[in-house]
């Protein structure tokens, strides 16, 4: 019987196509990634199993390692109204130019009595050098007034629109956080969110075994 001769094929595959795909994907990911802007105030957030994504446009209270409190008014539409409100209610006596200067600042972190002198400086102050908004027991807590102004600017709207975030450093002390919470409570805000790093749900935990929104436990008969 004549043997069928199979032609011996080379095992080398042409890699060009694969290389193209790999680099196409690579360039896509590099371009699609939003580069993180360098943070003016360094904060290492704690981690949680929460999977909700923190929104960008938010009223953000930042709590640093040293216990300083900063306020960021991320909701641009409301920023002007909030700053004008705080100017009149706390009688800061800011001129319109000073107000617009303040509006350009990302972080607010000065006691009321020092805001005007800060704005009169020729160069904008670095957030790191600010003193932070004073917090403490009732009257000393200037964050109360800030949150009050924020709430007033959202008046007439559903409170769902108010996206209040707290971003705290791991090493911040608990009392500072407590004062922040108190200033929210004073203004009748009972719902807010905490910025955290995502973290995997531990295996075999209750949450991993019965994820919320998953199959509901069998109904009673």
């Amino acid at each position, binding site marked *: 019987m004549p043997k069928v001769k199979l032609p011996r094929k080379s095992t080398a595959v042409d*890699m*060009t196509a*694969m*290389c193209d795909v*790999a*680099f196409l*994907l*690579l360039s896509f*990911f*590099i371009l699609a*990634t939003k580069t*993180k802007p360098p943070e003016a105030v360094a904060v290492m*957030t*704690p*981690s*949680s*199993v*929460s*999977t*909700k*994504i*923190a*929104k960008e446009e938010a009223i953000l209270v930042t*709590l640093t390692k040293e216990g300083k409190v900063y306020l960021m008014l991320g909701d641009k539409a409301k920023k002007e109204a909030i700053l004008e409100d705080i100017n009149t209610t706390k009688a800061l006596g800011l001129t319109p130019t000073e107000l617009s200067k303040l509006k350009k600042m990302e972080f607010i972190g000065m006691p009321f009595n020092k805001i005007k002198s800060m704005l009169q400086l020729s160069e904008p102050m670095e957030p790191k050098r600010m003193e932070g908004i004073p917090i403490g027991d009732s009257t000393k807590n200037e964050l109360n007034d800030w949150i009050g102004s924020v709430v007033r600017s959202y008046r007439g709207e559903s409170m769902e629109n108010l996206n209040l*975030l*707290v*971003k*705290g*450093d*791991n*090493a*911040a*002390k*608990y*009392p*500072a*956080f*407590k004062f922040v*919470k108190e200033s*929210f*409570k004073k203004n009748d805000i*009972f*719902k*807010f*969110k*905490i*910025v*955290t*790093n*995502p*973290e995997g*749900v*531990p295996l075999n*935990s*209750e*949450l991993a075994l*019965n994820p*919320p929104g998953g199959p509901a436990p069998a109904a009673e008969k």
Partner: protein
Amino acid sequence: MAEMDTSSGGGHKKGPGVKKSKKMSTRVDLTPMVDLGFLLITFFVFTTTMSTPTAMAMNEPKDDPNNQLKVKNSGAMTLLLGKDDQVYYYYGELSPTDASNQFKSSNFKDIRQLILDKKKATPIGDLMYIIKSDKEATFKNAIDILDEMAISAVPPGHYAEVDMSETEAQLIQMTEQANGIK
């Protein structure tokens, strides 16, 4: 005229034994390049998903002195957060005579099992975790313990943050001294 002899010496002719220079293939092995490409892709994919911050919802109760929640002694577990990532806990109410025996120390690694044991041993209607933070506790501790509640799937409304009492603060201090925590 004198002629230079170029035929001898250094120069040698191409004889029949000398090979012609071979035409090189223009194909390059792309395997390492593909490897590198995919390595970079994996790196970027991982780093991007890690950095998106998430938000943990917090719901604070309204402080109302007329409407205090009554908690059953049998269903209550109090978790106290202290210095240096320590967690202290006791069940029910602290009795003035036996407080030091009731008061136990733990840490964030072991507390999950304790929370779970309590949850399993108690009818859900009675279950209540009371969280109290010392002034030396950190923000991380406060978030971690709330996260533990989420991990152990304690339904909302069955845990609450409460201010620490003087006795408890003293007990923590005493335990810290005994355990040598600075």
